[in-house]
């Protein structure tokens, strides 16, 4: 009775993945969640760059990362979504927060007005980015997003298959960074 549960689950994983792909990008729920997550991401990103209090900046960045993870999940990349929250929001931004809190960075007040060159450059950059966004929208209008290999099974297979060498190299790099950090922090007696 229960004997075939785990094995048949392994075989049916692929069919379940294709069901996920077929359901993507279509329904009312997905569209609503996408727009809400996108709006919150943009608003919190604006807060992250423009608020005076550095702690609020970091927390807004956390919210942005959360919304990006929601977008990953909407594309079917569930592992990427969980990893985004686990690594980015849960570890990297915590360390950002530590640095901001411990350095006691005060809330900034702008010391001087931006110079004319800065205003012009900023406006041009914003216009270029907006134009680029419009071009991208018009090019890909109406097409479904391509299936992103983002579930745990797919990423796992890629890591031990075609990308095995890169995987091992990255772990050696991480080890080097770890040892380097410890050496740099160690005080000379």
């Amino acid at each position, binding site marked *: 009775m229960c004997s075939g549960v*785990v094995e048949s689950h392994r075989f049916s994983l692929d069919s379940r993945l294709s069901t996920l792909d077929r359901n993507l990008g279509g329904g009312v729920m997905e569209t609503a969640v996408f727009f809400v997550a996108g709006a919150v991401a943009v608003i919190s990103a604006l807060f992250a760059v423009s608020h005076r209090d550095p702690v609020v900046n970091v927390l807004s960045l956390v919210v942005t990362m959360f919304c990006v993870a929601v977008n990953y999940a909407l594309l079917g990349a569930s592992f990427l979504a969980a990893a985004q929250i686990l690594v980015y929001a849960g570890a990297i931004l915590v360390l950002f927060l530590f640095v901001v809190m411990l350095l006691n960075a005060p809330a900034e007040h702008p010391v001087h007005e931006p110079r004319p060159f800065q205003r012009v450059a900023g406006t041009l950059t914003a216009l270029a980015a907006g134009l680029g966004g419009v071009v991208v929208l018009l090019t890909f209008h109406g097409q479904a997003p391509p299936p992103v290999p983002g579930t745990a099974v797919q990423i796992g297979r890629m890591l031990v298959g075609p990308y095995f060498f890169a995987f091992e190299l990255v772990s050696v790099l991480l080890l080097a960074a770890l040892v380097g950090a410890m050496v740099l922090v160690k005080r000379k007696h």
Partner: protein
Amino acid sequence: MWAELAVTAVKLLVVATIVLTIVPIMVWVERRGAAFIQDRLGPNRVGPWGLFQPIIDVVKLLFKERVTPTAANKLLFWLAPGIAVFVALVTFIVIPFGAGKDVKLFGVELSGLTVAPQLDVGVLYLFALGSLSVYGIVLAGWSSNNKYSLLGGLRSSAQLISYELAMTVSVLGVLLSTGSLRLDDVVARQQQHVWNFIPQLLGFITFLVAAFAETNRLPFDLPEAETELVAGYHVEYSAMGFGAFMMSEYINMVTASALAVTLFFGGWSLPGVHLTGWFGLIVSMGVFLVKMSFFLWLFVWVRWSLPRFRYDQLMSLGWKGLLPLATLNLVWVGVAMTMGWL
């Protein structure tokens, strides 16, 4: 689609009710259990055997004056307990509470009493959201504008980050032997083979110790001990802010117990018993709750029996003790699976 939404809402309601009912019961168990271990009576005046004591405590906390320190960052000060409770509650949606075989609700087939059974990264989601609990504590410590709170908050977050690693590695052994990240599959595998704590005893012990540290319970409760930095990161909180932190601690305890049961003790299953249909659902929920309450009692028992670790002992235990042991368990599981023993 609406039927599925309704089913999810019902499951969510059941889970939320169970969890939020266990919290006041745990407060009562803590106080009576502590008294029992210390050879005294405990609260016994407010209702039969003092059962209404937690209710009166909550009422008191709701009506107390809410004091915010003068130079504290008001937004973050009151956001921190909210984050703590939110993160503690959302981790429940991937834990299987009961068997769901051959049961239909509103015409939708229940595949296991999990609020979100289709989430194929179950355990990873749980750890991802668990790692966000650091924010509640760090923000509480910093926004209180009190150097002792800040120290307590930093100590606690360092402890949480360190033991998160040991906990994840000890769970990796279970995930390796199951071959899936979903907790439903972990339970299903334990129905066919033995409960995971037998072949992976070392993993179970490291997981339990790390869970004690992750929930800030004795012997790892240095950051919030009353004798240390006067209750550490939540010293400035009054009324419901303090209540929220206490609630988040008990909810984290329930999550840790539920995880221990699901990963290592077979979840809702009983060996050799087929649990199908509505009767099986109720029985399996009962089995799960009984197993979970053993671990909840274990939390209370250990708290009132052991002295607490000093901060340096705590950190060295986490990095130099638990992490190597958990890795050893992972190596053992790998070897056993290659040899075909698991």
